[in-house]
């Protein structure tokens, strides 16, 4: 039974890591869209020809190989046992503190895994973090409540929490009744959760997953009841609300890196390192492109302007 639960928990975490690794690739593809053929002279006849390989997308293919190679290389490097350093995330370091606060105050811990289903990678990342929160709550003997917006998420959350209780050596304290499905309706869910927040006054609130208009409603309610709040989402439009109203926030990529940070698994850590290398390349390409484009303005017919145009059409569309 325990092994099965651990396996399920492990597969959930690997899924999160794989999904996080996949993010870099669509980004590169998106950048390359429309980077195709050079302009055809007006009025000229267009002749169709068969081609298996689009040679104009060659640089993009090289970029994909480099990024994927970096991820694979990172994983292989990690497997050699070489120590990999990941920056400390204050939001995750504060998990113990938030649950400790709830324990001392004799109140519950609330975990909201977003409002999307398990098909959303953010929900998967949120459930991974739930495992860590549940383990700490079990060690501290604090009550953890997880209201969910999707029935499948409830099932996944129950698995994660049960596995955490086993891992903490406190299986008897697991209570599946604390992990509930409320409703699929966005604002019906919000009303139910905020209502329970006002009534029960949890001392620690976690918001980890995909959030939309309800983000500020949750965060402001949590703030008003004096809870320590830790949020994590990859929704850029909701981040400012969480940053302003919560104590700690995992921002975008940090949220996905958190699963690697928490698990400490070498494959996941290596994957994070590889992705970071890919991001570094992207940043370098952007900076070089900006520089060349700026210089190219002063000599529109020169080689620099031509190089800038090539980068733009190849990667930027």
């Amino acid at each position, binding site marked *: 039974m325990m092994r099965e639960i651990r396996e399920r928990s492990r597969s959930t975490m690997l899924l999160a890591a794989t999904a996080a690794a996949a993010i870099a690739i669509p980004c590169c593809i998106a950048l390359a869209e429309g980077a195709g053929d050079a302009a055809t002279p007006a009025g000229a006849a267009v002749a169709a020809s068969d081609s298996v390989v689009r040679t104009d997308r060659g640089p993009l293919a090289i970029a994909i190989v480099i990024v994927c190679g970096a991820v694979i290389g990172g994983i292989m490097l990690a497997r050699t046992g070489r120590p990999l350093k990941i920056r400390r995330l*204050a*939001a995750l*370091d*504060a998990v*113990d*503190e*938030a649950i*400790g*606060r709830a*324990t*001392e*105050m*004799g*109140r519950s811990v609330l975990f909201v895994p977003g409002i999307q289903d398990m098909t959303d990678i953010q929900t998967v990342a949120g459930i991974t973090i739930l495992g860590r929160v549940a383990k700490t709550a079990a*060690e*501290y*003997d604090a009550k953890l409540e997880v209201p969910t917006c999707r029935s499948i998420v409830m099932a996944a959350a129950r698995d994660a929490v049960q596995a955490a209780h086993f891992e903490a050596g406190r299986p008897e304290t697991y209570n599946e009744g604390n992990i509930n499905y409320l409703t699929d309706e966005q604002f019906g869910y919000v009303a139910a959760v905020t209502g329970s927040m006002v009534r029960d006054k949890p001392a620690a609130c976690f918001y980890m997953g995909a959030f939309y208009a309800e983000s500020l409603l949750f965060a402001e309610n949590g703030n008003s009841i*004096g*809870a*320590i709040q830790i949020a994590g989402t990859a929704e850029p439009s909701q981040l*400012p609300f969480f*940053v*302003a*109203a*919560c*104590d*700690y*926030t995992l*921002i975008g990529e940090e949220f996905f890196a958190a699963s690697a940070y928490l698990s400490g698994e070498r494959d996941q850590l290596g994957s994070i390192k590889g992705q970071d290398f890919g991001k570094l390349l992207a940043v370098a390409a952007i900076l070089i492109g900006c520089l060349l484009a700026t210089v190219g303005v002063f000599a529109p017919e020169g080689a620099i302007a031509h190089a800038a145009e090539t980068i733009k059409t190849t990667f930027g569309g």
Partner: protein
Amino acid sequence: MSSSAPAAGKPAIDISKLRYILATDCGSTTTKAILVEKVGDSWRQTQRAEAPTTVEEPFANVTIGVSNSLTEIGELAGRRFIADDGTIIRRKNDSDPDGCDLYISTSSAGGGLQMVVAGVVAQMTAASAKRAALGAGAIVMDTIASNDKRRPHERIQRIRELRPDMVLISGGTDGGNVQQVVQIAEQIAPAKPRPRFGGEYELPVIYAGNKDAAPQVRVIFSKGFDLAVVDNLRPTLEQENLGPARDKIHDVFLEHVMAHAPGYDKLMAWSDAPIMPTPGAVGDILQRIAARDGLNAVCVDIGGATTDVFSVFGGTFNRTVSANLGMSYSISNVCAEAGMQNVLRWVHIDMDERELRNRVKNKMIRPTTIPQSAEALVFEQAVAREALRLAYVQHKEFATTLKGVQQQRTVGDLFAQQASGQTIVDDMKLDLLVASGGVLSHAPKMEQTAAMLVDSFEPQGFTQLAKDSIFMMPHLGVLASVHSAAAMEVFERDCLVRLGWSVAAKGEGKWGRKCFSYRVSGAVSASGELACGDVALVRVGPEQEVEVVVEPAKEFDLGAGAGKPVTRRVKGGTVGILFDARGRPLTLPENEADRKAAVARWAQVWETR
């Protein structure tokens, strides 16, 4: 008439009539006595004597050692302080040629005050309980918490094994957790820890937790324990209220622990003010000095078995006891914890590691031996540097802001989110660093004491260095509870030996590149430019006042910000002003030959007069 609070059952003390004050500190091995006299209009410490402590068998009476030390001090002062019947002689009038006006004492004999503390969460209420106990001068034997990763039976077993003088229980905010507080009480009560002294008396338990749990805690400890309930240490998580628990610990220390220790009933009858635990008294005088002068101060007392670090930053007092860091009984542990590599990095002469290991073990089994050669002294001071460094690291980890506190954020904090519980010890804001303990106080040269302090504490910016001349801070701490002005005066004039100043740049740079330039003007003139990795010593005497101007390179900070010049007027000391361009954190060259050359060069700077 100005009067001060006396010990229980004693008449009020008229401090205006005081002229001769005797103070003793009953340590584990030695009872140290000092005589504080009014000389003209000012208070001075005039005599000092010591005698072996007699709390253990065959004497089993602490007052014998006290009488011996006071007899000796009387001989030195030309006054009799001990009568033929062994009691302390009191002065009857101003013309009386014998006796004193006031007798006070501290005590750490028999291992001092030993406590077990408990709380719900180790980092929150249990940490507050530990701070309260340490601040009151106790040694914390163990900390029980619901998240200490021990099973209930393991906790009960541990409590059974310990023989504390008292137990302090905290846990839960007011109106908060009751269940786990009661659970902790239910684990301690059946364990029935036995007190160290007096097998007959009931073990004192102080409860300073959630007030809602107090009725149940009273029921649990109703038989076989002497329970005292005081205000909650953490009424809310945003607030720490250590005062009531500390005061109660002092009371219980006197009423129970001292009253049952051999001869202490007599000593308490002699003493005109409540007897204080020695570390509590040291902390008290440090807090008073810091409050009076608006200083951030650190005081270290390195002993044979333990190292105590006291600090006051922004008015917040903290004390830690590093139980396994010391220069004799614990010297092996220092070498193990720091690693021989780290110890030997401070040594610039060739030494055989095997011989050093023998030397360490010899010191451990013969703790009173002192270095007989220059090589042995260099090695001992290298060990001291590491012991002090480790003790300071532990202190920084303990002296933190409160954990579990709600944070207020703005969008501007997006990339600068810091967890709570950060250390409050800021080396750049440290104003005064005081050293005491054998290896520091009895170093052959003051320069060596200063060098050990700078190398291990790595002060930044301008920091005054001092040492407690004869370890009289405990005496002055208890004196301050009766006559604060006298204690302060003696502290300034006779207690502290001002060594000088450390002026050190924060930042890292490649050795050989410019770090900062300095200019000293006034009673002494000097100037120079220091490259990274260099140190310079300018001799400025204790009574000489100078203006110091330092201009750092752009990546170094001397207190005003990176690259910004600083001007300070300072008085010198027995050593002078050390300009330290080795950078912070202080790193030594990895190459063996370069490291030795650098350490030898620094040692030479200290030696040059």
